[in-house]
Structure formats: C-alpha cells, structure tokens
C-alpha cells in the first residue's frame, strides 16, 4: 500500500529503498523495464531524504509505460523505429506526478505501440508473468503490470486502448483502472488509437489506484478531449461500502469462450458483493458481439494515421543510406515496425480508403454509437456492471502470437468499454491454479467513484490482493 510506503519513506530512507528496488530490478528476469532512470531517480530520492516535501506522492517511485512521454528519458513505445528518441517534454501525467513528488524509476515494456494483448510484440522481447514465467503478463501494459506484481516497483502507469491496463492487471493479479475517456489528459501519450485510449494506474490496491487518480486526473487545456469540471476526490468516498448498490450482470459477458475457473471466480465475486449488501440482476448489452470488429476497424484506422509521423526524419532510428524521399522513408518504416504494427497499419489504411470508408470505418462508428447506447441504457437500471476482465487466465508465451485472431478475441470483454468511453477497473478475484483472475467492474461516464468504492469493498472482503508471486 502506498500509504504505508509513504510512512516508511518518511521514517527511513528513500534513497535506500530505491537502491534496493534497483538491485532487485537488475536481478529480475521479468524483462519488464526497458529504460531505467536510475541516476535521476536516486538524485531525487536523496533530495527527498533531505527535504521530504508534502506532495501526495512525495518520494514514491513509479514505473511508466514506454508510450508516455518523459522529458530526458527515452520513450520508444517498444518499437525499433523510435529507439533513441528522447522527448524534450513531459506528458501531462508526468508533470502531475512530479508536482506531487513522485520519482520516475524508468520505462516499462509493452506491446509495440500498444498493439497486443501479451507484450510479446515488443522489440525488446516478451515480458514474463511474475506468477509463471513461461506465461505472458497480458498487454499491452505488460511491463507496468509485471513490475508491480513482481515487487520491483510500488506502482505504475499504463495506457488502455482496448483493455491494455485491465488485461495485464487481470493476468498479473493486481488492480488496474481505465478511466472515463477525457478524465486523464492524453497530452504526451503516444497515440495508438486516440479516440479510445486513456492513461490509467496499475497498483496493488484499490486505494493506491484512487490515490494515483487524484494526482493524474483533471482538466488539461492541451488536450481538447480533456473533460472540464472540478477535480474530484477518489479517496474520500472509498470506504462507503456497497449496501443498496445495484449490480448488472451482462449476460453476453458469460458463457461460451469463458474459462470455467474464470466464470466460477467471477460468480463468487458477485456473491461476495451480494453478501456485502449489493443486489444483482442480469442485464443485456445486445451489441456486444459487434464490438470486437468495430474496435479493430476504428483502432487500426486511427493507428494508420497516428503512426504516419514515424518516418525517421526528425527523431528515432534511421538506418541505411538516404535515397529519395519515398525510398528512404519506406525503408525506415519497413525496418522499424514489427509485423503486428505493419498488419494494423495496412488494415487501417485499407479501411479508410476511398470506396471502403463507408463500408468499414463509418459502419464501425455506427456500431460504436449502438454500443455506447447499450451502456447508457443499462446504467438507467443498475449502478455498476460486473464481468470477467479476461475470458481466460494468462496464456503461454508464444502460444497465440502467430494467431492474431485468437489474440484479438481475448479482448472481447475489454474493448466495448473503450468504445463506450466508460470507466472500468480490474481487481483480483481468484486463481486458476497459480494464475490470477480479474473481476471487471464498469461504471457510467465519470462514475469512477462508484467503481472504486465497489472494488474497494470487494477487496476489503477478500484476500486475493494480498497474494504475492515468488519471483526474482
């Protein structure tokens, strides 16, 4: 818990704590950190030890996903094409973290440009799941989830375009929140699919997630999609309990394709919430079956445009001899992008092409509207929706990497949330053998307080968040 860590840092030495962490990181076989900011982190820790300051995260080390811009620290999205790019500016969330005294430890591995569900598409190779190193940590924020679960960082930031925070949180047995679209500024988040994604925390506990949300949420005029309005407190209402809470169970999120252990754990979780005073009923999100297709069309279309800027001209890697413009940038992109990124750029380019735009992109936008309406409709009846985060526990490294469709299918319960723009959290709710299972709790737009309160009540009543993997 970060509150305990903060007390410990005040009483003992931040520098010593950080040195221990870096020692563990150097021994770690998780392949979860990509770049370490050891020097600046230790310098800041020393400073903290001299003068602790009063920030909400004073002295707290934090790991940052590769795709969040950090001034002076390489930001490469785990892609060859961005190797060597050192941003001259901090993302909004980094500014907020620094303002509250947090210490940036380094950057964490991810699927290349956040395109994946397993962290296997990274140019640095796969990150390993701390619970079973033959398995994936989930993705795309697999590095951020693994460092927290593996005990080598107390908390981390990830980004969630179609489940990229919740999936690895679920696979690694920790807490991960995808905030309402617009609640956290995207300024400085390297875009994959800009109409879908949000930055979110990955932590051991719900309270830690609430604390990070207090720091990173809020209006930023540099992001035109950033929601206006007062900053909300997520910590204050956390202990409110779930008495009288109405939970909806979307019937489309259970049944075929869902692992039996997963289904069992989620139903037990629902029973637990019921025993705490909540009630539940079945609801329907009828357009769920179109969500994956719509998501991939929209995400790939946006990606094809968002990734167009990587031509090696201004930053990043530029190998080979310069020839004429088209030959040169084509060669740089051919060398710099991995196969999954290329696949998505090509499919997205196709979907936006003259003659196909209406059939794919526009149609996907229409489906998106229907899915959003499904959620709005459901939230007229219930306060919270509950489902599995992932239909399966963590799979083996290499098991699905050559079968992109089966990988895409794994996102079936997470992508609708991004299409609708609503918040959702994944909290640990059991195990399948040694492998953690995640419960997904979804709320209406800007309903983070209710989501966190429900998750917190569940966490307080269950032991799953206390389980730790044995890793080095």
């Amino acid at each position: 818990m970060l509150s305990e860590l903060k007390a410990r840092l005040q009483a003992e030495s931040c520098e010593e704590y950080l040195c221990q962490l870096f020692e563990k990181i150097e021994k770690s076989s998780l392949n979860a950190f990509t770049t370490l900011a050891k020097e600046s982190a230790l310098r800041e820790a020393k400073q903290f030890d001299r003068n602790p300051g009063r920030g909400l995260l004073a002295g707290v080390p934090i790991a940052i996903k590769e795709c969040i811009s950090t001034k002076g620290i390489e930001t490469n999205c785990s892609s060859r094409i961005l190797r060597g790019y050192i941003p001259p500016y901090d993302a909004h969330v980094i500014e907020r973290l620094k303002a509250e005294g947090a210490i940036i430890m380094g950057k964490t591995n991810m699927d290349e440009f956040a395109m994946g569900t397993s962290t296997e598409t990274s140019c640095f190779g796969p990150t390993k799941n701390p619970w079973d190193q033959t398995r994936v940590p989930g993705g795309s924020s697999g590095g951020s989830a693994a460092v927290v679960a593996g005990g080598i960082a107390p908390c981390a930031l990830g980004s969630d375009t179609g489940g990229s925070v919740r999936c690895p949180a679920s696979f690694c047995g920790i807490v991960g929140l995808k905030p309402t679209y617009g609640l956290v500024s995207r300024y400085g988040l390297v875009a994959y699919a800009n109409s879908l994604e949000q930055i979110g925390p990955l932590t051991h506990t719900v309270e830690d997630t609430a604390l990070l949300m207090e720091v990173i949420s809020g209006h930023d005029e540099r992001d035109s999609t950033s929601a206006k309005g007062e900053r909300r407190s997520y910590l204050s209402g956390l202990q409110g309990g779930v008495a009288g809470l109405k939970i909806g169970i979307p019937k489309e999120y259970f049944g075929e394709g869902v692992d039996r252990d997963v289904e069992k754990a989620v139903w037990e979780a629902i029973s637990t919430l019921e025993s705490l005073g909540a009630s539940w009923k079945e609801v329907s999100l009828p357009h769920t079956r179109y969500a994956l297709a719509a998501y991939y069309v929209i995400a790939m279309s946006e990606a094809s445009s968002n990734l167009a800027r990587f031509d090696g001209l201004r930053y990043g890697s530029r190998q080979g001899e310069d020839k004429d413009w088209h030959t040169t940038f084509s060669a740089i992109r051919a060398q710099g992008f991995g196969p999954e990124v290329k696949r998505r750029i090509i499919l997205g380019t196709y979907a936006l092409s003259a003659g196909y735009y209406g059939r794919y992109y526009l149609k996907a936008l229409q489906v998106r509207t229907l899915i959003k309406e499904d959620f709005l409709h459901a939230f007229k009846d219930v306060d919270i929706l509950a489902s599995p985060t992932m239909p399966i526990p963590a799979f083996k490294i290499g098991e699905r990497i050559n079968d992109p469709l089966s990988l895409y299918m794994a996102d079936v319960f997470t992508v609708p949330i991004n299409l609708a723009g609503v918040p959702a959290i994944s909290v640990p709710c059991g195990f399948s053998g040694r492998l953690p299972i995640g419960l997904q709790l979804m709320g209406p737009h800007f309903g983070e307080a209710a989501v966190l309160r429900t998750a917190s009540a569940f966490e307080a009543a269950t032991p799953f968040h206390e389980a730790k993997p044995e890793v080095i």
Partner: protein
Amino acid sequence: MDDVIIGLEIHVQLNRLQSKMFCGCSTAYHDSPPNSHTCPVCLGLPGSLPVINRKAVEYGIKVGLALNCKIEEETFFYRKNYYYPDLPKGFQISQYDYPLATNGHIMILGDDGAERNIRINRAHMEEDPGRLVHAGTIDKAKYTMVDYNRCGMPLLEVVTEPDLCSPKEARAFLDKLKSILEYLDVFDGSLEGSMRVDANISLKGGDRSEVKNISGFKGVEKALSYEITRQKNLQRRNIKVVQETRHFDEIRNITVSIRSKVGAHDYRYFPEADLAVLRIASWVPDIRATLPELPDVKRERFVKQYDLADDHAKSLTSEIKLANFYEAVAAQAAPKMAAVWIADVLKGELNYRDLSIESFQEEDMVEIVAMLDGKKITEDGAVQIIRALLDKKGSNPQEIIKALGLGKAEDDAVQKAVREAVSESAAAVADYRAGSERALNFIVGLVMKKTRGKADAGEAHRLVKEEVERA
C-alpha cells in the same frame, strides 16, 4: 475567350494572427532562423496534441461573411493523410465535409468591362506544412532541408466555382480577394508565401488540368495563359487534354506535368478525434458586428461623400491602406483634388517604384494639395515634389521646393514680367487686336522665360490678356 473555364483554390495565411493554428508558437517567423518557431505540437512530436486557435476560426468566419458565404451550424476538422517531409505528422489537419463557410460570392470587373458575380464554393481552415529548402536548384540539389517555422500556420483555403473566363479575370478575382482580406485585417500580403494559388483550367468540352502552388498574381496570369495556349494547341492537333496536375516553372514561364489522374492521391480523409466539433453558428452575430466597411461599400460612399468619379473611388478603395490614406488627406485638404492627385499621380509613382502607400507621409500630401489649391505651386512642380519625396531627395515639400526652385514666382514679379513682355511685343499685341487669339501665346512664352518657368502658365495667360486689353 468565352471558351475558357477557370476555377481557383487560394491558400491564404491568416498571418495577422499572433499564434499558429493548433499551438502557441508565434507566427512572426519570417526573419528568424530555421526551426526556431517550433514546439512539440507543430513538430508533431509523439504524444503531442493539437488545440484549436479560436481566434483563427473567428478570422475564418469573418472572411466567410465578407465573401457572402453561409456559415455552417457546426464545423469540424479532418485528417488529410499523405507522406511528405514538410508534413511532420504524416497528415494535415484540414476540413472536408462541414467546412466553415459555403456558397458565397464576390463581384469583380469582368473582361467585358461589366461587374461579374464570381461564386465561392467554400472556405475552409487548415494548417500550413513546413517549407523545403533545396541545396541549390530543385533538380540538382544533393539534399533538401526542412524548415518547420511555417508548419502549423493558420491557412484559409478559398475555393471558387469555375466562373472565371480568362487569366485577367483570375487576376481581378485575386486582387479583389486580397483587398477584402486586408480590409478585414486578417492578412498581410507583403509577407513571402502568404497567398498561394492552385488553378484549375479547361477549354470548353475538354478535361481540366490543375496548376499547383503558384505564388504571385503575375505567376497565376502567366501560368493560365500558358495553359490556354498549350491546351488549344493540343486541341488543334486533335490530341485530347488529359486530367492531370501540373507545376508552374516560374523561371521558364511554362507548366510541366507532375502527376496524372491515375497517380492521384487517396487522402483517406477521416474526422480528427483529437479536436472537438465547433458549434459556430452562435459565434456569427458577434463576428458580423466587427466586420468593417468593405471595398464595394466604401467605393459607393466615396462617390457620394466626396463627390468623386467612380473610377477614382474604385482606385482609392482597392487597398485599405490607400483608402485610409485618402480619407486622412481629404479631411484636411480639398477632397476632390486630393482624389485626383492620389489616385492618378501618387499611385502611379508608387507602382513605378514598387512601393506601398506607407512610403508616403499623409501630411506631405495634405501640404501638396493645399499648395496646389492655393496656386502656390504648379502641377508640374507637385509631380516633381512627389517624385523627390519618394526618391528620398528631400525630407519635406518645403525643402524640395527650395532646392529645386519650384515655388511659383511672387505675384509682383509675374505682374512685372507681364508688363514688360506686353510692352516688348507690339507686333503680337497688334495681331491679337486684329483677332488672332494665338498671338497671346507668344507673350505668355516671354513671361515664362522672364520668370524662369515659375509662373503658372494659365495664370500668366489670364494676366497677359488683361494687360493687353487694358493697354
């Protein structure tokens, strides 16, 4: 040339704005080192996001209203996707469906001497790309550099219907558009690259060619004239004109093909989700209230208020700075005389020197007109004063009058010269009395000689006549 069909797309930099279209960078980059007016946003650095410059949209609406367009209820931005080194994001933020303004029109003077209505299809906003700087000429350069200072400059693209019938009319349209933009104070045409034109041209019944990125109005006229000749020659030889994009080579004054329709880009336009939809209808009343008096209205007012000839009024209102200059002078000196001297003389002298009206002081013009009105200087002298001022051969009219001896001779001296000349010209006087009016010219010539040309010829004529008749 009624068989020529021309439509224009004009890219106007709204360079009177202080900051760029989607970031806070300054627009005053013209004398700055390359890439010194940039930030993560206009460099398209990973993770940066655009924010709409509201003032730029207001300027766009202002132009839309001045071009008699319909301002849309709401407007939003699209991404236009293509790869080019001057485009750091790999797409340009532009507009597509739902542009700012549609269905406008302005009046121009047609080739037949009558006013013609030219329809405006649309006006939309976009960001300017950076600028390529070739090491040497474009075809021989070993490398090319990019300057992103221009990148993200607010651009307004004005698209006409194919209503123009000749290169001259195209020029007249551009002059009028520029005039309106400067009246609105959204545009400074003196800055390099501030207005760039794509021209579509076809002969009746033929396919069109598009000549891209012509800078300078003379360039537009030349490019279009060349295209007409080229297309006519093809037709004469029974060769079909193909739809294609052409480049205007300013040095050789010709157009060359750069790509055919087959190679046309698919820009994959789709909505820019990083920017919100703008509901602009509600902005319109406030912006309309800020619209200044525009050239056509000002011209009518000048005719009425100052009793000017229409062509003088038109000439004086063709540029806002000239119109303001005129009104300032007219407030302090004879308005009609000022109009003639500014529109006919000063403007010509300025054009001849490629100077703008800012090169001439209002108070100098007031003084010159007052002296002319008071017959203190001759018309020829006034012209000489104007030239000397423009050529910096003197700092004010009085100094030049002294230096060049342009002051009209004192009345006494003229009277004296007249009396002497009449008494010395008995034969001419006799001729005059015998009925030859022309005989006086000889005496006037003598007067001018005696006064070394300082006398006003008309005045001298009057005085000679008086003297002869009295004697």
